[in-house]
């Protein structure tokens, strides 16, 4: 793997950029691997990366039915934060942020992780109680968290309309929160994995699992049978489909979630701003586009496309909080499939099938967890025991009742 740097850039410029190497190979699948990761999104690639880098398992294949990062990795609003209420969540998401902070260097690929700060606005007494509770909890978990007055919010976001339908009463700020370049995350991991010998196999769809006396032996794919010592399934919205192939069911439903970008503007918003009461979350990309997240459609759907309702549901709140955008144009709308659990927390778990592990249920908020999720999942697969940070997220919590209920606690689900 040739190192990327300003120097390699200049060197290659002199040869008209004709000597750059492939970021990753496109090998044919081998007959078998120690571990097969199903799903070439950020979480799957990160899992392979840490298997190879930290667990000494390099005989790994990542199989992707389409193109790398083509699922939610390439469709989200790129928000990264760890200001979650429950200890279990805070541990998982902050573990991720710590890895985000060195990712570009670790991967030698600039994922443009930018900690420009993330605001949660509070618009009523209930919101204030909610951020009050979350703020204190986060702080005591050793994670940065501050309360802002409306005046301080205005200072950070001069174009905001504090006196909107639900006037801004305050905000919770995580300065270490921010955004990253989502595609680069997939590409960076892929390149680093490839360099360590991991096979990245695109356009290879899973058609079934070969299971012998309760233990998975191989993955059947459109490119043939691939033997597998262990299988990690990281397929987000399609997890229920994978589970069905493996003969069990998951506590999941797949909902469309949508995002929007405006035409590129000279920067007017630096941080990420989220609001529950006036439902819109917004940031501005390094290209100048306003990146806006909506809520999900209320019905199960596997069609990765935008529906109209959310366009309207987003435009109103955006105009209410940022009336100056009235003459700005919405440029593009798209959708992803989010696999949602009842407690809005992910599932990292062993399954009824031996040597088969699932990493799913990230719903609307998986991107921010990418490195942490991959890291603890890799260690869980390698050891055959769930990593301590992952353990609380196992699927039997739905039998014991030990939910990690970020939804009930009214934390923002994005």
């Amino acid at each position, binding site marked *: 793997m040739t190192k990327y740097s300003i120097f390699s850039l200049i060197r290659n410029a002199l040869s008209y950029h004709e000597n750059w190497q492939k970021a990753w190979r496109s090998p044919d699948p081998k007959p078998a691997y120690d571990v097969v990761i199903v799903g070439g999104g950020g979480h799957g690639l990160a899992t392979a990366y840490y298997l190879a880098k930290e667990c000494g398992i390099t005989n790994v294949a990542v199989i992707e039915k389409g193109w790398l990062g083509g699922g939610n990795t390439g469709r989200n609003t790129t928000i990264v934060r760890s200001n979650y209420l429950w200890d279990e969540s805070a541990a998982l998401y902050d573990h991720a942020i710590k890895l985000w902070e060195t990712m570009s260097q670790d991967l030698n690929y600039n994922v443009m992780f930018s900690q420009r700060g993330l605001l949660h606005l509070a618009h009523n007494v209930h919101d204030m109680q909610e951020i009050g509770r979350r703020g204190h909890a986060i702080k005591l978990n050793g994670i940065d968290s501050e309360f802002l007055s409306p005046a301080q919010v205005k200072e950070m976001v001069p174009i905001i309309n504090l006196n909107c339908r639900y006037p801004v009463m305050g905000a919770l700020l995580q300065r270490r929160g921010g955004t990253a370049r989502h595609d680069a995350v997939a590409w960076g991991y892929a390149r680093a994995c490839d360099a360590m010998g991991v096979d990245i196999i695109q356009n290879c769809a899973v058609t079934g699992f070969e299971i012998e006396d309760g233990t998975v032996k191989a993955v059947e794919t459109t490119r043939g049978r691939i033997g597998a010592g262990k299988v990690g399934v990281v397929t987000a919205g*399609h997890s229920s489909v994978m589970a069905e192939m493996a003969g069990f069911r998951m506590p999941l439903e*797949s909902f469309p979630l949508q995002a929007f970008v405006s035409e590129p503007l000279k920067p007017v918003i630096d941080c990420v701003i989220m609001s529950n009461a006036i439902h819109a979350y917004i940031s501005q990309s390094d290209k100048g586009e306003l990146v806006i997240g909506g809520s999900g459609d209320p*019905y199960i759907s596997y*069609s990765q496309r935008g529906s109209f*309702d959310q366009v309207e549901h987003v435009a109103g709140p955006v105009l209410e909080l940022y009336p100056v955008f009235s003459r700005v144009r919405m440029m593009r709308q798209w959708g992803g499939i989010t696999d949602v659990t*009842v407690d809005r927390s992910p599932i990292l778990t062993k399954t009824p099938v031996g040597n088969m592990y699932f990493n799913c249920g990230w719903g609307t908020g998986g991107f921010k967890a990418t490195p942490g999720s991959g890291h603890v999942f890799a260690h869980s697969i390698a050891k055959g025991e769930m990593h301590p940070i992952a353990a609380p997220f196992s699927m039997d919590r739905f039998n014991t009742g030990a939910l990690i209920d970020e939804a009930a606690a009214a934390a923002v689900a994005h």
Partner: protein
Amino acid sequence: MLTIKCPWCGEREQIEFTAGGEAHIARPENTAELSDEEWGAYIYTRTNPKGVHYERWVHSHGCGKWFNAVRHTVTDIFWDVYKIGEEKPAVPEDWDGATTRAQYQAATQKTAAPDGNEK
């Protein structure tokens, strides 16, 4: 935005309805006798199919009535709607969800009738 056929009011815009999730999940009679797994499955586990989905809707801003529907979760085309308590309609194996029920039946009839007589 979908159009949904309320079995009473007819075709209406989705904004008049509320989605009710998977249909035909009967509440167990003997809740006390269920294992935690059985109970957990009843509350949390869903089929979540990529394909034919039996689901519930309520015409919340219309007549206020709940009903069931069969929809393909890839194409979002409805096969049918039916009232609570009515038989769960069978959907042909080979329905790929890319046509309405009427189109599907017209097509199959066409293939059925050798003289190619339509309708």
